[in-house]
């Protein structure tokens, strides 16, 4: 079955090609069937490979891709526990979102194009997670960036959406520069970009080696861009301009977790570089808290979820930063379930509200959207970390590892976790409870989404509830199934890092505190938004300066604008005049004109007269004879 693994990325690619080539002639139903069917096919193959996998890594080589001098890059796939987990998440969640999109986008006139982009995205995402070397990963990495750009700006007639797409693209470029420099440095250091050779080569380095630190740091810059960490996170909230299934698939469940996957994949390099790991930890922790605070004051349903995604990605990086790679991947997985569900649920709400996204104008939707209400509740509980929902297990594992690392930092992470519970329930209560605050017109139109949209919601809800049981910790009698499954991948790292063990008592106490805090947060949210019926005003005049600061997202966008964008614009305006127009254009156009002029002269040589040609040839022969006799 492993031999068939090449089909996994090829199927979505085929889907993309089919839909893109025959977009005009295919009926919508068929487009939907092809798009979802190909991803389903990939999922089925991934599952069957998963069932047969015994924890060993298989390399499936397709062909020699680039071979030049010492550089040999095969186009090959690596099938091991880590890539299998990612494959299942990408194809599984991807399939559900494809099905959902068929309903959500059915009224869009460019439906076929949308579905083809989604398929193309899945193809590149699969390349990213399946490649057996950094170049194939980079191909996927860039490809998903491209699809993200195309899909954020899908409704390209709106200038703001286009700007959001451009912002995402440019911010990712900054990260990609780091990534590609890291890969170059890997090649220079190890003479190869294949995982197997790089990782076995890395085992010869001592902990804290400067080159390894540089490599991991550069790679992490790439992860910061792709996974929206401080300071490169501002593109993600803006990326919500894309259709909601895009937000769910790309900007919550899969693409933004590419950075996490990349670090988990390169775990041995990171383990050898404690400095970078600490850096990752602090960036992750900072992002988790920072984004969570912004989430408290957002009134756009998708923006809240976007900041929540940034914050949760921060949690994953905390896990990686403490060396708990399994915990990071575990949270990646559960987050994919519940965050995709939250986005799709939000999509269902937006669909019902005829495009309204402001929670100030919602309220009381539970009566009208019963299914969406229930699944949204389950997802909200899961993300808040209430047992036994999936988020509880994965977040708890991260917190436990962080506590063992440093109790002080644990305190900060706990704060972020509390904030999460608060803003999520704030969102939930404002949307579904209380009275309806929208227009009459909207009220008349309120309807539950069709089955094609609610069915994926229900499946994701089941996963959000039960996903945590994949890795039940020992204290609950669990056997840490995921950890054992992934252990071959992280084996080398675990040998090199001591596993700070905390006692069962402590662990239970930590859990109790976390759950208690979450409970308090929920209660606060309830008392404020349900009992007191408070509705955020969105009017800055009534806010204190602190509220204003957070409401405006700490003015980070404005600060970037003032510190980077405006000076750059100034420089580029000046250099347009002085460097571009005068220096470069002068030289380039001068030499181009000279060449063209030369072309005009030289063509006169082609006189058309045979006599001239013959004489020229004989003279050339004489010249060659003369030259060789003389020299």
């Amino acid at each position, binding site marked *: 079955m492993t031999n068939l693994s090449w089909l996994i990325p090829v199927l979505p690619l085929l889907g993309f090609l089919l839909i893109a080539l025959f977009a005009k002639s295919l009926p919508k139903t068929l487009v939907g069937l092809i798009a979802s069917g190909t991803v389903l096919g990939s999922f089925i193959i991934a599952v069957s490979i998963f069932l047969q996998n015994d924890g060993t890594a298989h390399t499936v080589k397709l062909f020699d891709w680039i071979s*030049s001098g010492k550089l040999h890059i095969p186009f090959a796939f690596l099938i091991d526990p880590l890539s299998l987990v990612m494959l299942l998440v990408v194809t599984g969640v991807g399939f559900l979102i494809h099905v959902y999109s068929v309903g959500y986008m059915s009224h869009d006139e460019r439906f076929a194009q949308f579905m083809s982009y989604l398929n193309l995205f899945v193809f590149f995402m699969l390349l990213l997670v399946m490649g057996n070397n950094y170049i194939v990963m980079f191909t996927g990495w860039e490809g998903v960036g491209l699809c993200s750009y195309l899909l954020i700006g899908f409704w390209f007639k709106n200038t703001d959406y286009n700007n959001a797409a451009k912002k995402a693209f440019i911010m990712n470029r900054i990260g990609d520069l780091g990534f590609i420099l890291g890969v170059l440095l890997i090649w220079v250091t190890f003479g190869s970009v294949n995982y197997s050779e790089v990782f076995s080569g890395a085992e010869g380095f001592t902990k804290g080696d400067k080159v390894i630190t540089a490599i991991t740091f550069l790679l992490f810059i790439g992860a910061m861009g792709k996974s929206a960490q401080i300071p490169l996170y501002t593109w993600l909230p803006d990326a919500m301009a894309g259709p909601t299934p895009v937000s769910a698939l790309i900007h919550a469940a899969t693409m933004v977790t590419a950075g996490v996957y990349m670090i988990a994949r390169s775990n041995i390099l990171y383990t050898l570089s404690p400095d970078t790991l600490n850096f990752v930890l602090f960036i992750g922790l900072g992002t988790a808290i920072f984004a969570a605070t912004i989430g408290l004051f957002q009134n756009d349903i998708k923006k809240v979820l976007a900041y929540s995604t940034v914050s949760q990605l921060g949690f994953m990086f905390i896990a990686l930063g403490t060396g708990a790679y399994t915990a990071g991947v575990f949270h990646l997985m559960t987050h994919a379930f519940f965050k995709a569900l939250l986005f799709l649920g939000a999509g269902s709400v937006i669909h019902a509200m005829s495009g309204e996204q402001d929670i100030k104008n919602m309220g009381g939707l539970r009566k009208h959207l019963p299914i969406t209400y229930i699944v949204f509740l389950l997802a909200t509980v899961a993300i808040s970390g209430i047992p036994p929902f999936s988020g509880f297990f994965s977040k708890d594992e991260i917190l436990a590892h962080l506590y063992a690392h440093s109790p002080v930092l644990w305190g900060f992470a706990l704060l972020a976790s509390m904030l999460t519970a608060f803003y999520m329930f704030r969102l939930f209560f404002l949307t579904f409870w209380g009275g309806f605050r929208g227009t009459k017109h909207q009220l008349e139109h309120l309807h539950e989404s069709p089955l094609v949209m609610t069915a994926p919601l229900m499946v994701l809800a089941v996963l959000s509830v039960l996903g945590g049981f994949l890795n039940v910790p020992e204290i609950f009698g669990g056997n840490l199934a995921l950890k054992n499954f992934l252990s071959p991948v992280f084996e080398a790292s675990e040998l090199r890092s001591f596993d700070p063990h905390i006692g069962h008592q402590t662990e239970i106490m930590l859990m109790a505190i976390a759950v208690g805090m979450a409970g308090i947060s929920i209660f606060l949210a309830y008392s404020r938004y349900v009992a007191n019926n408070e509705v955020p005003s969105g009017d800055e005049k009534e806010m204190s300066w602190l509220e204003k600061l957070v409401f405006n997202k700490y003015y980070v966008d404005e600060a970037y604008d003032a510190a980077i964008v405006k000076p750059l614009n100034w420089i580029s305006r000046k250099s347009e005049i002085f460097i571009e127009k005068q220096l470069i254009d002068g030289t380039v156009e001068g030499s181009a004109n000279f*060449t063209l002029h030369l072309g*005009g002269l030289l063509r006169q040589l082609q006189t*058309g007269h*045979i006599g001239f040609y*013959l004489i020229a040839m004989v003279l*050339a*022969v004489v010249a*060659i004879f003369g030259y060789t006799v003389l020299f």
Partner: protein
Amino acid sequence: MNALISLSVLGIVAMLSEIFNFKKFLYSLILLGLVAAIGVNVMEWGQFQLWYGMMIVDEFTLAFSGVILLTGFLWFLLVADNHQDKAHISDHFAISLFAMAGAIVMVSYNNLSMLFLGIEIVSISMYIMASTQKNDLGSNEAGFKYFLMGAFATGFILFGTALLYGATATFDIQKIGVFVTEHNSELPAIFYAGLILIMVGMAFKISAVPFHWWAPDVYTGSPTLITAFMATIVKTAAFAAFLRLFITCFSGVELFWNQTIMIMAGATILLGNITALLQNDFKRILAFSSVAHAGYMLLAVLAMNNQSGGSLLFYLLAYSISSLSAFAVLLAVANLKGNTNVQSFKGLAKKNPFLAFVVIVAMLSLAGIPPTAGFFAKYYIFTAAIANNYVGLTLVAITGSIVSIFYYFRIVIVMFEGDESTEVTVGSNTKALLVICSVLVILLGLMPDFLIGLLK
């Protein structure tokens, strides 16, 4: 060798079709025969045969024969839509098949007499093909120029051959090579004179500056279909012959000829590209571009290392299939508009997006831009040349390819201008050709290793 026999038999069958009256099936028969010839050629891979010391079958022969046969097959796909002179169809087919047979002789010779025969079989066929449009003055002129200058150049090759024979007492190129290495320091003057004359004659055949004069005029004047044949199959054969001659016979005296070839290569690249800049006729642009490409390929000859054969093979295939698809679209456009001017392509992108796409792929490949075959073709040739310390010349070559982007993209830009054009129709065979060529160009650009690994 089997490919050569099949081609000759096929040519005779084509002539017989006139007598036995099966002209209707002739075209399909030839296509089948060419597929069969490709098949037997592939089957022979890995064998080594020497036929009475005259012809040699080795990997070099088979690889270049493969390129010739493949290009020939694709060229015959082009014939279906573009051959007007139905009355003489069997003669024309027979001559083109014999020309291909001659081309195979040129890549598999082991004796200078076979080289001479191969060159003449190809050349005489091409003189006829170039002047097939009896009432078109352009075709007349092209045929005449080609004939006169070709015969003149043949005279040089023969005189050179005679002098080499006088110096080494043999026509066998391997024995000449052995003689050269054994008597490296005491070679007689007539040997060097012979070398120069043969080099000059071969330089004419590959249209290297300053012996290129015939090429632009002949390419422009000949019927476009024949130009496509000359620019691809004839060029492939001439270059393979050139490389085999220099690697086998003259590698021992590399220092004697390398500077001359180096200057020729640089001049060919610059002159070909720069002169193409201000041409307004697409066919003539392709003619000058063909001259320029000869310059790049000379770098492979200069490299004189184990990468020479592979990189030249790759370059010729990439160049041939890219040119063929460009010529195919040019033929389709010219059939409609009645001329081969660049402006005839106006509005093609809007009316015929498929044809426009094909042209874009072909132009990218000819200009050497990834992800097309042309990029890796240039890449391999340049690395091979740099490996033999021709850094300066490689820089000149890179400059030349930058210049070439101007005229290759000009046609692309024109395609997107205006929309007055009526739709260009292409037959199914041409369509098949365009699809095969474009797919091959992109495939070779994505996975170049397979082909380059054939000749090490």
